[in-house]
């Protein structure tokens, strides 16, 4: 099955950011396809390369980056939501790209299922 993933919550604040990753990873390992992961609302904070969690904690941003590199994932950050929250190309982590909300709608059209993670 081809999934679209929508991440609506920020890292370290909300379980949704972790669950979205776990779901995506599990789906890929089961042989499913991920059309795109779209970061919206506070979810855009999953994409900043300035993130530095304590050493004994998981690194949520790098985790996405590795998954994206391993599976050629398309990680898209909403431009309007990102600019509101101070995320721009200069602090965007490698492996993510900034684009418009149309990318989310397109994912809804092209994926078999669009799965939302958030409240």
């Amino acid at each position, binding site marked *: 099955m081809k999934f679209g993933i*929508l991440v*609506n919550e920020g890292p370290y604040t909300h379980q949704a950011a972790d669950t979205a990753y776990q779901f995506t990873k599990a789906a890929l390992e089961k042989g499913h396809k991920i059309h795109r992961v779209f970061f*919206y*609302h506070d979810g855009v904070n999953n994409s900043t390369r300035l993130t530095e969690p304590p050493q004994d904690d998981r690194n949520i941003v790098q985790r996405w980056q590795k998954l994206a590199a391993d599976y050629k994932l398309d990680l898209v950050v909403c*431009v*309007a*939501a990102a600019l509101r929250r101070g995320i721009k190309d200069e602090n965007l982590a490698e492996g993510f790209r900034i*684009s*418009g*909300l*149309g*990318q*989310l*709608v*397109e994912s*809804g*059209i*092209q994926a078999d299922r*669009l799965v*939302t993670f958030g*409240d």
Partner: protein
Amino acid sequence: MTESTGGIDMDEETSGVVKKFLYVNRKAPYGTIYALESLEVVLIAAAFDQDVSLAFIDDGVYQIVKGQQTKSINVKNFSPTYRALEGYDIEKLYVAKESMEERGLTEADLLVDVKVVSATEMADIMAGQDVILSF
């Protein structure tokens, strides 16, 4: 990237496919950004010629209540935008009857024309969708 289609080349990417999209609005209009950013998706989505409906459930019904005044909290009152949806051919707005009644609201309190539906009817509407985006 163009503003109206949110980074998508319409001709190449999505032509031909029409899916039923339901945007479920569950949060009060102010206090969190969910309602405003949901509306931003709806407006972008309008450019994609999809079959779009909106549902207002729980505190989401407050999003379309008349007479919103936000000056004192220094936040933009975006409620007039709901009136503009008709101009984007988005005319299927459903409101959960129970949510409205629990909050002491009637259809006369709302700033757009809606269809008031029971929880059972809302469930049927949801079951008939291809894509549900819940904010």
